[in-house]
């Protein structure tokens, strides 16, 4: 903060230099604090539990890459991973489609009750999950959807739909009406216009919601722990927790599991960091 002065050379420069040292140290320290733990887990994921207990903060030598294969099969992380991918994938596709359709209607059409509908759907953002989860448990039980991946997908769609519509509608409403009139004169129906105009042009906003929903749901824990019980249906967060409960002391294997859960996010983040930052913060900025 001291170096706020740096931006404005008018303030005595030498004064800034002295202050610069603690400031740079702080930057470095905070970088280590945020990034370090992930490096540490990455290192541990390649070491055996005994090695770790001998020296928790050491480099893997040799690197036990085989641990990943073992975790994937023997510790069932593969199953958890696929469950997560299926649930999150389905939920994100449904959210994008249903959300975009509703957002398109709210942004493009004038109809009686539009404002009320918008308010009702967006009020979904205000609902605390505790208020949903208890009876959602009952309801899914009734429908025979309790302890199924489909039930979890529905719960996820319900919790994220309001935010998705909110972000998409904001963007769609800014698209010029002329485009839609032109498409209508070119002979396209409302559905074709949605498919060929709104979706392609709305891609930036859609990418944002896909990122946001993917990350939030990939990490989701509360609904999963309430709505799933079978080991074979567990998503990654649940799977890791379960493994942790059963093998509290097998730190090496848990670390490998953590890496399996972190890796997709880290890889995506390395490639699309700006899009992901924008996506994660999209709901908060406006």
């Amino acid at each position: 903060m001291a170096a706020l002065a740096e931006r404005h050379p008018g303030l005595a420069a030498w004064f800034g230099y002295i202050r610069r040292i603690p400031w740079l140290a702080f930057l470095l320290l905070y970088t280590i604090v945020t990034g370090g733990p992930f490096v540490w887990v990455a290192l541990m994921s390649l070491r055996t539990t005994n090695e770790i207990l001998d020296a928790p903060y050491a480099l893997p030598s040799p690197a036990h890459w085989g641990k990943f294969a073992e975790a994937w099969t023997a510790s069932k992380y593969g199953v958890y991973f696929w469950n997560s991918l299926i649930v999150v994938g389905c939920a994100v596709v449904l959210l994008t489609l249903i959300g975009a359709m509703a957002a398109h209607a709210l942004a493009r059409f004038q109809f009686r009750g539009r404002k009320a509908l918008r308010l009702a759907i967006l009020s979904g953002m205000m609902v605390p999950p505790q208020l949903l989860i208890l009876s959602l448990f009952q309801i899914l039980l009734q429908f025979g959807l309790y302890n199924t991946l489909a039930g979890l997908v529905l719960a996820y769609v319900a919790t994220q739909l309001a935010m998705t519509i909110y972000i998409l509608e904001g963007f769609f409403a800014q698209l010029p009406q002329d485009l839609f009139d032109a498409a209508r004169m070119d002979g396209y129906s409302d559905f074709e216009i949605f498919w060929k105009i709104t979706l392609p042009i709305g891609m930036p906003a859609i990418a944002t919601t896909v990122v946001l929903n993917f990350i939030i749901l990939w990490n989701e824990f509360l609904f999963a722990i309430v709505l799933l019980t079978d080991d074979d249906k567990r998503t990654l967060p649940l799977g890791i927790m379960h493994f942790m409960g059963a093998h509290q002391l097998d730190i090496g294997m848990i670390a490998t599991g953590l890496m399996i859960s972190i890796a997709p996010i880290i890889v995506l983040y390395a490639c699309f960091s700006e899009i992901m930052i924008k996506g994660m913060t999209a709901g908060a900025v406006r």
Partner: protein
Amino acid sequence: MTASELQPVRTDDGLASQGARQTSRATLLAFVVPAVAIFVLFTLYPVLRTIWNSTQTLGPMGNGTFVGLQNFEEILFRDKTFWKAVSNTAIFTIVGTIADVAGGLLLALCLYAGAPMSRTLRVIWFTPVLMSYVVVGIIWTWLYDYDWGLINHILRWIGLGALEQSWLGDPNTALWAVLVTHLWKWLGFNMIICLAALSALPKEVLGAAELDACGWWAKLVYVITPMLWPTLLNLTVLSFIGKMMMFDLVWIMTGGGPLWATETVSTYVYKRAFNWNTFNLGYPSAIAVLWSGMIIAFVLLMMRLFRQRERLEF
């Protein structure tokens, strides 16, 4: 391509576009029915049902008996654990929210002041936001470990071995340990939002402040913070909601222990609903209703207060 690139239309007549925005009822329904169905079936109905449940004693097979407001009476006047959970959650919320927003602003200022490699730092600092509570919780459980955790390691290394603790095992420190972890996860989020708001500040105003002979501290207090006020308030509300509903991290790191030291309202609801043998969904529903009402009331109150304040200032 961004929305701003597509120029908004200035129609000749203000209302001209209205007619084109009409469509048949069938088309309209096709577009909104899926969303409405999801909303009604999986949001509205569950919420109403939870509220109804809160007036019941509800067995595992759904065999409920109506008990009126008895659950609420029990919670408010006899349930000591509930009040313990409320006080813990209050500490989380008040301390956590202030630290969250102030910390986020501080980090943003660090980068805004022209840090070297600020883009890279920003990306690294944001990483914890993307991680699940399970990952974050487990990592920090290890860092807090008495024997081989990094915190105690460092304390011993710098000769402060006397301070070493079982951070999560001691009722005096567990709450703060969890809170630090929560902050660590979310600071990056607030930092990004503050940074975006800072970059949007008009440079002329900062320049003008400089001409008015403002030092950096004066500039921060009298110029930057007031101009960021709307953003900071927004973040306060968001952070507040998040902390009031805090569940995952506590559940993963301590399960509410030791000795209720980290029990939050949300973990208590979960325990009463699914972990205790007294399977009765009515009672936790009542807590959830009570607490949600509190959250919504507080949020509305905050928004109202803040709006009034804004009106005074501008």
